[in-house]
Structures are given as C-alpha cells and as structure tokens.
C-alpha cells in the first residue's frame, strides 16, 4: 500500500482582469531556467515547474503516536482561466525501519518522498491528516502552500487589485493506493473555516494524475464557494434588483465562465468526478446558482425598462 498526502490552497489572482498568456510565464516562473507549461484548450491553464522543500518533522503514525518524518515535499502552482491561482504541496509517505536520519543526498535522490522512521500505520496517518482542523497542517504543508501562493501574488507583473473578495480555501487530501483495489472510492467533505477534505482509495495510479484531480476539485469547490458568497452579499429579494445586480457583477465578470469540471482529466479522475456529481452534486448547485444570477439580471433589466415616466427622467 502506498500513501500520498497533499494540500491545495486556492485564491483569486490579484490582478484586475484575466492574465494574458504572455505574462503568465513571468508570474508563475518560480524557478529560473525551468519552463512554465501552458495549455489553451478547453480552458486557459498554466502550471509552474515543480519545486521542493526539505522537511524533518513529527508525523502522526497511528492513534496518538508520532514518528519522525524526513524527506522532501513537492510543490507547484497553477493558474486556471488566467484568474484562479492554486498552490499544491504533495508527499508520498514511505515507512522505513530504523530510526536514523540519512545524509541529505539520500533524500534528494527521492524527491517528493518523506520517509517515516518507525512503525507507521498508513491509514491512521491519512486519517490524522484529514481530521486536523485548519489551524494545524501535516508536515507544514499549509505553510509551504502559503509561501508558494504569496510569492506569485506578490509578483510585479500583477496589478494587485483582487476582482472577487474571497478567503483562500484549503483542500487536504489523502490517497491510499493499493494494487488490489479495483475502481476508486472517494469521500469529499466540506468542513468549516474554508477547509475541505478528500479521501481517495484507489488502484494503481500516477501521483501527478491524483494531484491534477485534487487541484481540479479544489478549483471548482472554490468557484462554488465564491459564487455563493457573492450571491449572499447581493441580498437578493431584500435590495432593489438594480442594486443586487450591481453586487452580482464580479461573479458574471470573473467566475461564471470558469466552470468546467474534469476539463483536463482522464481515466480514474473522470470517474471520481462522476461520483461527486451525484453526491454532493457540485454541478447541480452551481447550475442552480448561475440560473439565479441570470434570473436576477433579466428581472432587473425588465424592471428598469418598465419604469414609470416620472422617475425615468433621472436616467436621461
């Protein structure tokens, strides 16, 4: 059995419009000399080169017990639709016998792997990773994600104005890979404090594909969260329709066109999305919210054109 742990942080890029393709490279170029991968179809997507950071810390091995974990975390950042920025931290946990830390060259030969020195119960470690609240993060993955995100958000090519006000969301995931497994089981949970968790149990799979899947889930969950918060702020039914529509505008300008579940995914990831569409049904909630926004727009337009003549003169 193989355990992979990860965390994804999602935020709106601090730039007033979408980021044009030719500047994406400057913004995401975390490492000199390595290329940013960019694709245009079906949605603009750019991913930074992989970057690594060394860790030597305690990790929860089984209920209550901790072991020492030494190795490296893999990190990367990606930008979707020129507007939504994400950073990821990922590590495969390899239990090894013996309690000695080896020379760093040993760990540098295994990038993205953290060796757990001591008796480790992988499902227990996965459960502890997912059960923690937002204020504590396994192996400092949260802090690593913040660092990657901040570096890009502070880039001089951005104009620093945020189109949609939203809290950064955190999606923690754990994937238990076992060759004997057939198909894939997924548990997606929305926790308080902008925290989401995903538990995957699956057969043989590439780690990069799992990272792609979890980033895609985090992206769409963030879009939904941001849209819901814009709708809530617009006070539909309380404010005048013209006022509500004004507050809905950021959603129309920056969010509505980005919904494209599993756009770049295949294989196992697609089946995970299909499962999530029936429950909790992310796309259903999204579609209903989008219809609500459009209905408000249509109604505001209808009301403004049927305004009585005495108040219409203000608009001349």
């Amino acid at each position, binding site marked *: 059995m193989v355990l992979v742990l990860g965390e994804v942080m999602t935020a709106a890029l601090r730039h007033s419009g979408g980021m044009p393709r030719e500047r994406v490279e400057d913004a995401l170029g975390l490492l000199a000399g390595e290329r940013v991968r960019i694709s245009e179809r079906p949605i603009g997507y750019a991913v930074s080169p992989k970057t690594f950071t060394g860790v030597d810390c305690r990790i929860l091995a089984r209920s209550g017990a901790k072991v020492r974990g030494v190795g490296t975390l893999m990190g990367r950042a990606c930008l979707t639709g020129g507007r939504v920025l994400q950073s990821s931290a990922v590590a495969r946990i390899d239990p090894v016998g013996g309690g000695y830390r080896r020379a760093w060259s040993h760990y540098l030969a295994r990038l993205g792997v953290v060796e757990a020195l001591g008796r480790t119960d992988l499902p227990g470690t996965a459960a502890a990773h997912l059960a923690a609240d937002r204020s504590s993060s396994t192996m400092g993955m949260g802090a690593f994600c913040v660092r990657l995100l*901040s570096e890009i958000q502070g880039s001089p090519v951005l104009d620093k104005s945020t189109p949609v006000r939203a809290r950064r969301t955190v999606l923690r995931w754990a994937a238990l890979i076992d060759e004997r497994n057939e198909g894939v089981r997924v548990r997606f949970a929305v926790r308080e404090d902008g925290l989401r968790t995903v538990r995957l149990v699956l057969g043989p799979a590439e780690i990069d594909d799992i990272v792609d899947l979890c980033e895609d889930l985090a992206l769409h969950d963030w879009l939904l969260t941001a849209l819901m918060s814009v709708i809530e*702020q617009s006070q539909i039914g309380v404010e005048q329709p013209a006022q509500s529509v004004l507050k809905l505008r950021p959603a129309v300008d920056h969010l509505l066109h980005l919904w494209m579940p599993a756009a770049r995914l295949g294989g196992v990831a697609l089946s995970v999305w299909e499962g999530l569409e029936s429950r909790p049904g992310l796309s259903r909630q999204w579609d209903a919210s989008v219809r609500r926004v459009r209905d408000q727009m249509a109604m505001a337009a209808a009301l403004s054109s049927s305004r009585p003549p005495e108040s219409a003169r203000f608009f001349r």
Partner: protein
Amino acid sequence: MLVFAASDKGGTGRSVTSCNVVYRSALTGSDVCYLDFDFGSPTAGSIFQITDAQRGVRQGGLHSYLLEPDIQTTGEPQRIDVWTQSSRASLRQRPPGSGKLMLFPGDQDGGEFGPDKEALRRCVQLLQALDEEFDMCLIDLSAGRSYATQLVLEATADPALRGVAARWLVFHRWTRQHIPAAAGLVYGKDGILDAGVRAGHDKDRLQSAIKFVRTAVVDPDSIELSGLRPAQVAWLRDCDEDLRRIAALHQVGRRAMLGTVPLDPVLQWREQLISDNDVVARDIANNATVDAFDELARKIQDDEGWAEP
C-alpha cells in the same frame, strides 16, 4: 485597503475607536478585519467581548504567527469571527446585508520585539492574504514609536504590496499635551515619516496618506453642555480656540484631520462597541458618537479626502 491606527500616547481611545469604526463599516456591508498589533497589551478581545481572548489568545495569535514560524504549520494566524464568537447578544445577531467582521487577536504572553527579517516576510504574506479577502483591514499598532510601526512601514514598502491602498490614522486627545505629541509621532525624529522614508516610502506620498483623528473632544456648542454657566462656555470656547491655534502650528490642523470623536462617558468607562441599541433603546450613549464613527468609517474609504496635493 490597509488602515493603520497609531497614537503617540496610550489612553487616546485608539483601540476603542478603531474597533467601533470597523464595526460600523461591517454594518454597512463591507468585509472588514481588525488586527491586534498592540503586542504588549492586546485588548481588542475585550472590546469585542470575546470571552476566551480578553487579553489575547493562548496560542496562534499574531505575535506567535510573526515570531515563531517553526511551530506554525499552516502559515495562517488564528482568527475569531466576532459575529458568532462575541459574548454580547446584540453583536451575535449579524444583521442582514452586513459584511464579515473578523478579529485577529494577539497573544497573551506577547511583548515588543526587535527587527526580524522573517517577521517582515510573514507580515507581508499576511497583509497580502487579508487584502484578498477583506475590503478593509485595520491594523491597530501599539502606542509610541514601536517596532510594530516600523515593521508595517517596511511591509507596505515591499514590492509585493505595491498598489494596495494604505492609510494611516493618528489618534490624539484634544489637549495641549496630546497635540504636539501626535505631531511628533508623525513629523518628529524617528517618527512615522522618518521611518517610512528609511523603509523606502516616498515622503510626500506617505504624508498624504496620514490623517489625524481627535478623540474625547468637548464641543462647547453641544446640547450636553447646555446646562453650563455662560462663563464656563466662554472659557471652553477660549480653550478650544487656543487648541486650534496649537494644532495649526504643529501641522495637525483641519487639513490634516480626518474626523473627531466627541467625549462620551460610555466610551470612556466601558471601552466597548457602542451598538445602536445603546443609543436608541437604552439611551446611555450619545447619537453624536455613533455618527462620528459612521463618518470616520465613510471618510476612511472615500478616496477624495486622501488625494495627493
């Protein structure tokens, strides 16, 4: 937008006014947060009436976020949602249409500290993340020339925060001692302007982003003083005139002023948020005080008053 609240002396009502301004902004629908950077004596918890954080939190507050990154695994400090965590019933009912009202508390065993490169980096990251989320972040600094003040001056000069509006409120009481003291904090040696220029700010631009707020002001014409004898009113008027002259002399006059907060016993003794309930139903606080907070909240966000000369 980032708003920094500073004062030269303690007891100016900086924290209590700032909390009230943040609260009034949230009521009008802005998403706002309050950062307790008064590391020596974090008090915002008690102003917002958060039972578990009266004098800061036990762990994970702003002080440990900035200074103990080793034990911080998430890269985020603790936050408290005032609408749900306040022990005051009238605060817990979040009015419809109001914005977020979030408190970032200090630590109980905090304290002042010296220059620290890592703290600067974390401060920049924090302000950046909060600017993504909130319409206004109010950072309450400790009184006097503190390291917290220098830290935020360096942070706002960082390229990562270029383009983010940063405004300064300097609070002072309307007295003969407080006016020159406030002027000294801004214009004096090692004052905000001095330290700001050293941190890389443009002097004129920084100066145009600093405004004064007069607190505990006695208005000789107010109805509360209508019971005074004519001689007393005349004397008050003379004093007020004298103070205006002193203020103008120290560049703390009308043009550099953002607003005034009247003397209000509720504010002096209770040091808490003044709710509409206190004014209307209980009739203990003055309407003029709440109006002053509303006015301040509006002026802070109004670009016109902050234009460069």
